[in-house]
């Protein structure tokens, strides 16, 4: 008898033994596992699959097994909405994680209020949680917070006149707007504002102009993908020595590899995931960060990314809420989720409230400086 036949026999027996005894908690996810946002969805899906396996191996939630149903929406809002409907109506999930991109998230969001199912998004934009929607939560910090964190570091160095060089892609454009809107309140003045296209290969003209601006004291580069690495190389090529800031969008070892020696001295806001061994012993995030990295490396043989970390936090927040609710009723899970207080994740420490469905403050970001090809936390 082949192994499949044995397996089939056993599952048939299991069915005969009576399905109700094996009650399952179903959790749905719609992620951009392929397509243009695959770098987000791929580590997110891997993280969720790893966590479900881990959870079931240790007895599930309150003794009940968890089943994860994942769909690949390829960051297409239309598909995401279709999959969200299918998850709710056919798969009868108790909660949904996902929307790797803001577009997919916003397309799905209205459904969850209609069906009263809690939803945790893994996308960045402020619009997801501002205004607050009853059933919609999110785990990543916003680009507005990244700007505030960078500006706080700039003013703490006694500087205030900032030049922006932003990518024209979605991420760079959105963060540029947020930086412009919080600049005044943060005590900095934007004295130069340049941009570049996502596939541009030389930004020395823009940097030359910024460097020639009167009284310029620091440069900030909101952007994503290869652009910021090119800007960093051009910055070194021109021999500029102004304090230089990148965004959380490039907070990965990949960026250091691409920018090479030019990256030394660059500062950026990032999650503690990049500095697992440099976190203080009494840091509440030390344990989750080290657990996640160890488990992910064992399962997939590679380092987890910041984006996988968003999924890690979403899953743990949800499991925690289901445990506290002591029920699989979606509305009770939502209420428990909103009551989350001081949950230490890998991205930050979450405390949700009826007014705040992201639950992070600026302390979730750490300012890191690149030194000799590695990350060093900057003392605040």
């Amino acid at each position, binding site marked *: 008898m082949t192994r499949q036949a044995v397996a089939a026999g056993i599952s048939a027996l299991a069915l005969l033994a009576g399905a109700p005894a094996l009650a399952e908690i179903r959790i749905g996810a719609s992620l951009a596992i392929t397509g*243009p946002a*695959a*770098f987000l969805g791929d580590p997110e899906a891997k993280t969720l699959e790893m966590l479900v396996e881990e959870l079931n191996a240790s007895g599930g939630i309150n003794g009940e097994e968890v089943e994860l149903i994942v769909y690949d929406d390829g960051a297409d809002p239309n598909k995401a909405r279709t999959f969200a409907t299918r998850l709710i109506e056919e798969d009868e999930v108790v909660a949904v994680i996902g929307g790797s991109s803001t577009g997919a998230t916003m397309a799905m969001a209205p459904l969850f209020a209609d069906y009263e199912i809690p939803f945790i998004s893994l996308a960045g934009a402020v619009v997801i949680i501002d205004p607050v929607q009853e059933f919609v939560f999110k785990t990543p910090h916003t680009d507005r917070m990244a700007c505030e964190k960078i500006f706080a570091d700039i003013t703490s160095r006694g500087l205030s006149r900032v030049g922006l060089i932003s990518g024209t892609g979605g991420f760079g454009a959105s963060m540029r707007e947020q930086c412009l809107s919080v600049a005044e309140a943060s005590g900095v003045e934007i004295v130069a504002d*340049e*941009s*570049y*296209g996502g*596939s*541009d*290969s*030389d930004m*020395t*003209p*823009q940097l*030359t*102009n910024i460097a*020639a601006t009167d009284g310029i004291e620091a440069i900030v580069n909101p952007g994503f*993908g*290869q652009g910021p*690495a*090119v800007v960093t*190389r051009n910055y*070194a*090529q*021109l*021999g500029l020595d102004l304090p230089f800031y990148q965004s959380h969008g490039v907070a990965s070892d*990949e960026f250091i590899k*691409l920018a*090479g*020696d030019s990256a030394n001295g660059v500062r950026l806001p990032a999650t503690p995931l990049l500095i697992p061994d440099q976190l203080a012993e009494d840091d509440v995030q030390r344990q989750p960060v080290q657990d996640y990295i160890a488990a992910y490396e064992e399962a997939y043989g590679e380092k987890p990314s910041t984006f996988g970390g968003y999924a890690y936090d979403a899953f743990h927040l949800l499991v925690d809420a289901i445990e506290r609710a002591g029920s699989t009723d979606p509305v009770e899970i939502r209420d428990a989720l909103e009551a989350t207080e001081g949950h230490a994740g890998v991205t930050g420490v979450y405390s949700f409230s009826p007014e705040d469905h992201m639950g992070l403050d600026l302390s979730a970001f750490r300012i890191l400086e690149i030194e000799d090809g590695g990350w060093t936390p900057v003392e605040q």
Partner: protein
Amino acid sequence: MSELLQFLVSGLTVGAIYAAIALGFTLIYNASGVVNFAQGEFVVIGGMTAAALIGAGVPVWIAAPLAVVAGMLVGVALYRAAIRPAREAPLVSLIIITIGASIFLRGAMQAVFDKQIHRYDGFSGDAPLRVGGATILPQSLWIIGGSIAVFAFLAWFLNRTRAGRGIKATASNRMAAALVGINTGRAMNLSFALSAAIGALAGVLATPVTFTSYDVGVLMALKGFSATMLGGVGSPLGALAGGLLIGLIEAMTAGYISSDYKDASAFVVILLVLFLRPQGLFGARITERV
């Protein structure tokens, strides 16, 4: 003054990359009248292959030629598998086939390589050279030199060699060329092989400056195609001039006006040129007899 010099250096570097891609377009067009939209993919194949080999510890002077050969082989395979079977089809169909091939190659590269962004160190190091008040990367000199070398080779090959003239004759009138004894199949084969090699060479030279990943081919092809149109389709001199001109316009706009108008200003110039000189700056006026 040093600012102007820096903008010039930037424009020439970027322009030389566009020119190298445009030269690849020129050759296939000269042989078949086909605009090969998979040209950007050859650039990526060159860059990705070189990055993978160098990452595996192969010295750059072996990896670079191997990457060019890899691009050339894919070019020949593209011709044999997709273009030759459809050689009786109208031109538009052939152009659409190249679009399909570009989508296929992009998918294949995700599987063969990965979805990460890659780069490797410049051939002569990454320490910038100071020229006047401006700085230039040694790799930029490689790129500019490479484009000029490819241009010189093409100008010589198409006008001074039997094989090159065969390619031009094939494009002009395939049946007549076959009747006077030119092996038109071989001419087409050769033109695909060479233009893929030129594309791959552009990728190999540019990757230390521009980086590469499986999906940058489309944008590369778009810029290269614009350069081809500006300079005049089918003219190697036009491809070189068109590429450099677009690079310079972009750098000057970013430097003196606003980086927001960089791409727009390049396209405005292209439109103006095409209104006033539809055949492009160096293109021959084409008259079709009916």
